[in-house]
């Protein structure tokens, strides 16, 4: 029934000479939201960056629908159908909302109009401000724009890095609701989230990372009940 979209197998990765991921393996299934949680420095963001080609895996393989994508450049991975929403600096501040969205679609060869109008329908806030520069948006609005920009490609898979970072709780909830909406439309989501409870709350499965490797992996509900997870965060 469930089909593996992305398979990470035995990956080591890191920055320069600093290794962050150690023999990490995990899968992303079709239609699910997978939430990566874990203490600071566990390597959560590094997983996303490695999948998305911003870092090359040192060893191991990353496949997408069975094809190896490890080491491909981000601009090519986008064309494969994987989108990425970074945690910070995730909009082009000096470009308007409309231009930001157009940038999201540079790899599309067809007319952008239909998909843009669909996105504007879904995120009315963006339509309202379509000619404003993105740097004038609030934190939550930026996050939504970042999400929408990645959606212009209508990706199969969306990688999202800490959608709630720096947001007030209510705003974060709205963003999470939007993430869920995106998932409902058919994109599998791999999301890093510091706010484990809220992150797992909207997720199907969770992966707990510690020191660059997967410590637990389970249904989101089961992880919420796991005392060991708390200990990981606050020390035992």
């Amino acid at each position, binding site marked *: 029934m469930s089909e593996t979209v992305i398979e990470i197998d035995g990956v080591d990765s890191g920055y320069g000479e600093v290794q962050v991921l150690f023999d990490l393996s995990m899968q992303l299934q079709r239609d699910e939201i997978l939430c990566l949680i874990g203490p600071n420095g566990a390597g959560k963001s590094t997983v996303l960056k490695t999948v998305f080609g911003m870092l090359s895996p040192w060893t191991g393989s990353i496949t997408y629908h069975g094809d190896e994508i490890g080491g491909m450049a*981000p601009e090519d991975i986008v064309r494969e159908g994987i989108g990425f929403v*970074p945690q910070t600096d995730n909009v082009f*501040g000096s470009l308007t909302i409309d231009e930001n969205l157009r940038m*999201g679609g*540079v790899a599309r060869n067809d007319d952008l109009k239909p998909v843009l109008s669909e996105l504007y329908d879904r995120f009315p806030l963006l339509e309202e401000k379509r000619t404003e520069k993105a740097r004038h948006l609030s934190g939550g609005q930026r996050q939504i724009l970042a999400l929408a920009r990645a959606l212009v490609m209508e990706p199969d898979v969306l990688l999202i890095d800490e959608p709630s970072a720096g947001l007030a709780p209510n705003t974060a909830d709205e963003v999470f609701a939007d993430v869920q909406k995106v998932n409902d439309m058919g994109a599998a989501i791999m999301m890093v989230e510091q706010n484990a409870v809220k992150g797992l709350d909207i997720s199907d499965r969770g992966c707990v990372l510690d020191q660059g490797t997967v410590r637990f992996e389970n249904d989101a509900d089961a992880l919420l009940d796991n005392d060991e997870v708390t200990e990981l965060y606050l020390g035992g």
Partner: protein
Amino acid sequence: MAVTEQFLELAANGVVYSSIIVLCSIGLSLIYSISGFANFAHGDTMTVGAYATLVAFGAIGGIGFSVLSLPLGFFLAVVIGIAITAVVALVTERIVYKPLQIGSLGLLITSIGIAFIYRALIQVGFSAGTYRYELEALRPIDALVQYGIRVTEHDVAIVISTIVLVVGLHILLQHTDLGRKMRATADNPDLARASGIRTRNVELWTWTIGAGLAGAGGAFLGLFNQLVPRMGFNELLIIFAAVILGGIGSVYGAMLGGFLIGMIVEMTPILSTVGIPIGSEYGAAIAFVIMVLVLLVRPEGIAGQAVGGEGG
């Protein structure tokens, strides 16, 4: 009366000179925005444009009908000159700057070396002497002389060409995919790649356009004055002053800064007329003083965003 007349004349000249400075300032700022270093070879890139135009015009000759006393062949030569300049800059970027792994200061120093290589090669090919395009010298336009404005049709051609190029660039930046990609890449290269932009191509296009504009500026500078191997390097300080005034890395700031600095430099003689004993030879010095004042008061320039001054 005399002051007004002089003012008008200088202002008219200033507009012509500013046009040239604007073209070059935009190019410098564009390249800075994408490659992150102050390109000291930009002045000599102009020189390349001027001499390339000279050669092209020599080959083509004054063919075709004339616009503003300039034969079509000349405009064709300018286009070829721009293309050659762009190719030279692209080759330089490809074989010199790109392989270096030394940070922006190292690139800056390297660009000085490139500047000298350009100039030395031009001097080898054309000697240190002066050249002019093979065009007949023009008298100022009669209709304007009565107002004290002494500009030739060539000067008008420079201004109009600049306006065409600047408007063209504006349309490119604002209304084409390439322009949006250029702005996006300068704004946030990582996100640009994450969006699927092939940033290396954008970088090369930016170099092409930046150097091409410098080439155009150089060609027009040759028309405005004459061609000498140092012509571009001599303007480098002015161009830097303009770019810093406008905010380094900002294209529209460079337009504004280039216009202001160009006008100020050309209007300097008015100072002695109104009793301030600063001669016209200090035009560049005034540009320098403005630049230093901008650095003191507002290092990010008029239009620029803060670019990482260290603070106290």
